């Protein structure tokens, strides 16, 4: 089946219904392997057992940013290509990305308390991540206030593209400013600085989080398509009652 066929919501729903159970199963297996690896991983010589929080914190941060990147691409799909599923994809990604960003902030601050001695500091990495969460809230507020889904989607698409300037700021905040948050240690020039014993479960957890995100996203897109159909049916019904 060519990819272009996925633009048809009915065919898309059929594909999602076929793929989703496998995706959920893969997510569960990956989480089982990843969590097992995380539990078996040695404690850090400085941080002790609190290093385990990283296995949730780092993937959540990546996926929080991935969510906004996805919304930006979907925004291009909405504004430029007028792809019929792009605004559904954007709308479905917003609450999931916000949730992952929130998990990142909460786990980070729980880790910060024993390690840094404070739940929160106003350094560049933490602040830019908080701004990302606020931007997610802004997009969600747009969806809540728009009466008509299409109009809200186009407004949110513009905001997604504007808000994308925050993504490189988050990524490079630890290089541009002197932050309490540690600099990049996984994806950096000259290879990772993390020991393989910890890096391997971290990457498996990142994969598990990504699968979780994709599964949640596809399910949310399916729900949104069905929700719009229900809305259209109600509108038609109301018109018939009126006539």
């Amino acid at each position, binding site marked *: 089946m060519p990819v272009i066929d996925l633009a048809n919501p009915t065919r898309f729903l059929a594909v999602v219904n076929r793929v989703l159970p496998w995706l959920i199963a893969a997510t569960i297996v990956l989480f089982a392997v990843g969590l097992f690896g995380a539990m078996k991983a040695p404690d850090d010589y400085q941080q002790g057992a609190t290093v385990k929080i990283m296995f949730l914190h780092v993937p959540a941060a990546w996926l929080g940013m991935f969510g906004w990147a996805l919304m930006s691409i979907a925004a291009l799909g909405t504004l430029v290509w007028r792809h019929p599923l792009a605004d559904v994809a954007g709308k479905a990604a917003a609450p999931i990305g916000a949730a992952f960003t929130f998990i990142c902030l909460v786990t980070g601050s729980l880790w910060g308390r024993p390690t840094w001695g404070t739940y929160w500091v106003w350094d560049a990495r933490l602040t830019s991540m908080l701004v990302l969460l606020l931007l997610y809230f802004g997009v969600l507020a747009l969806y809540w206030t728009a009466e008509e889904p299409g109009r809200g989607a186009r407004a949110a698409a*513009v905001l997604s593209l504007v808000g994308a300037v925050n993504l490189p700021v988050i990524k490079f905040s630890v290089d541009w400013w002197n932050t309490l948050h540690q600099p990049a240690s996984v994806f950096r020039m000259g290879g990772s600085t993390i020991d393989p014993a910890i890096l391997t479960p971290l990457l498996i957890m990142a994969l598990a989080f990504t699968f979780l995100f994709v599964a949640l996203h596809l399910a949310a897109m399916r729900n949104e398509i069905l929700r719009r159909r229900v809305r259209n049916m109600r509108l038609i019904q109301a018109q018939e009652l009126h006539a």
Partner: protein
Amino acid sequence: MTPFRALLLRDMRLALRVGGGALMGALFFLIVVTMTPFAIGPDLALLARIGPAILWLGALLASLLALDRLFATDHEDGSLDLLMMGPLPLELSIATKAIAHWLTTGLPLVVIAPLLGLMLNVELRNTGWLALTLLAGTPALTFIGLIGAALAVALRRGGLLLAVLVLPLTVPVLIFGIAAANAAIIGPTPFGPPFTILCALSLASLVLGPIAAAAALRHGLE
């Protein structure tokens, strides 16, 4: 008369005459600054230390408050539709409107900032630096706010939604504005880097703001 000049003069006249809210922002700014010492107590040393921050926050809120009017009245009486069909590219006419908006609401804030600085125990010779940072930074607030105003008018919503959309995007302006003001007044960090970044933010938003706002209007009002 070129369309640019005609639009600029029209918007400025509308803002300055009866029913326009040009000086309302400055008045709001004055009141916010007056309220602050009531909230934190008349400790002059403390006021001097946080004075620049209060002035910047007050200017941010005052410029936010005026944004509602940027497109809403034009949308109500239909002149926004004329602008969208007019000879000027929509990006340019929006930028013109934003410039007129800044001249009537942003510039008054800059002008009264030295006076308000004195009320917050900022030394007289330092108030000029403070006003300079506001002069460099408030255009960015207007041009970033432009995007929020366009989104809000496309959805026929305003008020709090506008604040929720715009405020997160203005964080860098606030950071570098206050950094520049503090560098000039308190030191010891140099004034140059944060101030030039502040100017860069204003220039970048001058380009990007109208493009994004025009996209929002085109897709929202079609």
